[in-house]
């Protein structure tokens, strides 16, 4: 735990990078002026720490630097940043896809043992390494005696029926701020006819818009908020173990599965190091580790097999569509109209 | 002697001959034609064909056409004589040629000397010697002449060969009234000893 260095680094990096907001930094392995492997990621350090520790243990000579930021900034950094990172991990599949499509990712050929299932990779440039169900988190105490809505139709009915209770007590991602949030929302819009209805209902209830899962979970836990919509499952599970008031619900009509992806920026200086890490992350050892030792789900997760409820978001060029200038513009306009009433 | 085919045919048609010596290569044709012609006219005169070829096929041909024998040129007179004798012997049957002198009869064709009904057979040279004497009795024949007649030129002849044969013939004439006289330095002659 080298939080001692954090402050210095934040200052240092902020001064040099292109408006990259660094939320957290952690280093592993031997101290070097420039780390052998610089990872830029949107996954919470605490969540990913077991993997990094394990890797460092296995390769003690490699110095790792793990930088935490948000998905939008990560996208900008890869596209416009000056000092390239060696590995970029993000939950924003669409932003990662655009980076890969537009030529900002390097092609990496991995050994057969590190080949994940077809749907988890794209063109040897994007590598999914973990799955994440997107669900709702509700206040356990509030729903103690009430049946919590199991699907979105129920949710809409419930929202409508309990307007007084829920006004100002709902929260979801601010899609203008959070890339992940934007992804969840657009995927909802694509997947379901009832999305805009729900958005309007939420809007009519003065739904709060937060930037991040952590804050939303805190709010539910304290009781400030009774329902948080589109929450990353692993965060919720982890928190619900620590905090009593959290109940995680995966809607039965569909629960999107987010694929966390990694890419190697084309300007990387440490290609070999990045490849080695990817190899580790994606082979049986790494995946097993993710599954058993972290709160994340690995690609082999049983959840996929369970029922048709869990739908992975497809890692394909369709993800580019909502990033289109006009389309995005239009979506945001409508979204704002719906949620700001 | 006929010189060509037409002459031969002419002669044959007019006279009977004891034997015909026929050359295959005649100036105006093949001797075989003559042979075929006379045989087709049922003329059975014995014919000895003279040919230069010694092939079997020719021999069979000739015999088929009707020749009785053939002789290959060039030949020894003695051989010709011998063949004539053989052919005539075969042909004549009962008609035996017989030479008589003194009380002996010589049958050249069968090589028999008969005296007083007793027949003694003669060897070839003995026969020929007697034949010479019987044909010209009391004529003196020199050793040379006799040698020439009895032996072919290619034969090795010892000095006393003639004497040996004369001696043998004398023995055969013991039962007869014939004698062969040795005429000193001249030759021999046959005469009747009375």
């Amino acid at each position: 735990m080298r939080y001692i260095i954090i402050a210095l680094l934040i200052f240092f990096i902020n001064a040099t990078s292109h408006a990259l907001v660094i939320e957290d930094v952690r280093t592993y392995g031997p101290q070097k002026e420039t780390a052998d492997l610089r990872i830029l990621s949107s996954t919470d350090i605490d969540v990913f720490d077991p993997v990094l520790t394990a890797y460092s243990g296995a390769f003690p000579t490699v110095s790792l630097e793990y930088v935490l930021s948000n998905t939008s900034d990560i996208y900008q950094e890869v596209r416009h940043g000056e000092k390239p990172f060696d590995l970029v991990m993000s939950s924003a599949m669409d932003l990662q896809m655009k980076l890969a499509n537009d030529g900002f990712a390097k092609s990496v050929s991995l050994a057969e043992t590190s080949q994940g299932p077809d749907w988890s990779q794209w063109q040897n440039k994007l590598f999914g390494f973990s799955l994440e169900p997107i669900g709702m988190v509700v206040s356990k105490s509030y729903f103690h005696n009430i049946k919590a809505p199991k699907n979105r139709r129920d949710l809409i009915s419930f929202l409508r029926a309990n307007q007084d209770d829920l006004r100002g007590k709902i929260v979801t991602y601010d899609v203008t701020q959070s890339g992940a949030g934007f992804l969840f929302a657009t995927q909802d819009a694509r997947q379901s006819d009832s999305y805009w209805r729900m958005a309007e209902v939420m809007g009519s209830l003065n739904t709060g818009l937060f930037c991040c899962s952590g804050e939303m979970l805190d709010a539910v836990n304290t009781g400030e908020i009774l329902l948080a919509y589109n929450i990353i499952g692993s965060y919720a599970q982890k928190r619900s173990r620590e905090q009593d008031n959290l109940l995680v619900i995966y809607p039965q009509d569909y629960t999107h599965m987010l694929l966390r992806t990694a890419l190697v920026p084309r300007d990387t200086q440490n290609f070999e190091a990045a490849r080695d890490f990817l190899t580790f992350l994606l082979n049986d050892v790494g995946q097993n580790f993710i599954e058993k030792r972290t709160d994340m789900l690995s690609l082999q997760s049983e959840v996929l097999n369970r029922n048709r409820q869990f739908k992975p978001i497809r890692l394909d060029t369709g993800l580019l569509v909502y990033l289109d200038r006009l389309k995005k513009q239009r979506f945001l306009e409508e979204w704002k109209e719906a949620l700001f009433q | 002697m006929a010189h060509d085919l037409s002459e031969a045919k002419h002669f044959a048609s007019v006279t009977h001959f004891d034997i015909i010596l026929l050359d295959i290569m005649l100036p105006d044709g093949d001797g075989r034609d003559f042979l075929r012609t006379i045989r087709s006219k049922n003329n059975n005169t014995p014919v000895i064909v003279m040919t230069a070829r010694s092939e079997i096929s020719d021999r069979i041909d000739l015999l088929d056409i009707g020749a009785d024998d053939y002789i290959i040129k060039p030949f020894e007179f003695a051989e010709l004589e011998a063949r004539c004798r053989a052919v005539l012997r075969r042909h004549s049957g009962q008609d035996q040629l017989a030479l008589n002198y003194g009380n002996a009869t010589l049958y050249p064709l069968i090589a028999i000397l008969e005296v007083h009904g007793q027949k003694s057979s003669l060897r070839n040279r003995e026969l020929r010697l007697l034949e010479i004497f019987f044909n010209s009795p009391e004529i003196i024949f020199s050793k040379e002449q006799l040698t020439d007649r009895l032996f072919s030129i290619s034969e090795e002849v010892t000095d006393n060969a003639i004497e040996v044969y004369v001696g043998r013939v004398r023995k055969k004439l013991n039962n007869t009234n014939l004698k062969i006289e040795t005429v000193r330095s001249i030759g021999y002659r046959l005469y009747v000893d009375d």
Partner: protein
Amino acid sequence: MIRKLLAFKTISIRNRLLIQLGLVAVVISLFLFLVVRLALVQAVTATQDRLLAAAVGSVVDKIYVVDNVVSLDLPYDTFSLLGAIGEDQIFYQVKDDGKFLTGYEDLPYEGPFGDLQEPIFTNIDYLDETFRAASIENIIFAENQARRLTIIIAQSQNFQATVLTKISTNLIFVTFIFLIIAILFAFLTANLTIKPIGSFADDVKMRGPSDLRKVSSEVPSELIPLVHSLNGFISRFRTALRQTETFIAEAAHHIRTPLSVVKSESELALRKSKTPENREHLRNIIRSVDQTNRSATQLLDHAMVLYRAERPEKQKFSAHQAVEDLINQFRPAADLRDLDIAFSSNLEQTQQVHLDRTLLETSLRNLLDNALKYAIAESTVSVDLSQNKKQITVIITNDAANLKGFNASQIFQKFKRGPENKDVIGSGLGLSIVLEAANAINATIKVKKLKGESVCAILSLPC
């Protein structure tokens, strides 16, 4: 080796055919491969183009005008599908009267643009890669104006490449199989084509040495000229042989007839002559004639044996009869010298042998002639004909005058004569003729000295 390759004239026809057919097969295979591959590329490109056209169509559907503002609601499924097939990258660009509307502004393409029914398909180089693009222009109305929208959708060709590679691999495999089959076929064809030549050659080879019939014309038309020349050659050869045969036969007549005349005239003269000198001259003449005749006979025999050794005329005849006939021929001459010929035989009259009769008789004639020539006066020459197991043997035995220096091995050499036989007329060819004749009929000849002063010649014939 190079020289061998360059000796075009001597390359076997089969190999020629093989090489030519093989080359043709290779060329055709290559051609086929290229043509099919070209067709493949066209098909694959056409497919991609169709897809792009459909994508463009679906995008055009989503163009709308609101408050005179042109906007575009990109269809998610279209983009999802376009990229899904083979993980291809997608780029697009929409311009409104030349003004960039959305997409990738720096996509390097200015036209020409097709229309919905017939988009224009081109290759665009972008970001160091080649992309296949469909571009159209579409007229819409906004603000009472006709606005010209250009839409370009470009897709990378990873999928195409993958498909092409896969099918090409299969294609190569198929082409290779085809090539192998074609070469095998070429091999078969070459062999089949050559076959008539081979059988023709075998036909001719199978013939016996005396088979001078014309060669059959049942051959492929290309070989007919060869057949004709061969037949021409055979005719000329046959004629030449016949001429040789005729010559040998004629020679006999042309030599012997004049000799005969000389001999007969000389003998007559000898009988009539009184002068010892003249008689001596005449004797000399006759001796010379005899010598000449003997030599001529032997030379002719020799020629005949050589001639027949090449092409024996086998015929079936009775061995007993043949030997007997021969002996009968010699009897008169033998008789003249008081030589007896004793004939014994254990063969049946009907027992036949199958060989060249002339050669056999030539051997026997020469042996018998020899025996009679060297026999002691008034002795018996015996001829024994016997058969046991696989052999017929003729043994001619005679008492010889002088056997000093008798050498069984030398005796067969040409012109070699026994040392004590200088006085006897002969040319020394006789026994060598017998040897050659015997060889020609696969018989063996041996001459042995027997106990006492006698010699025997043993001729063994195979049955």
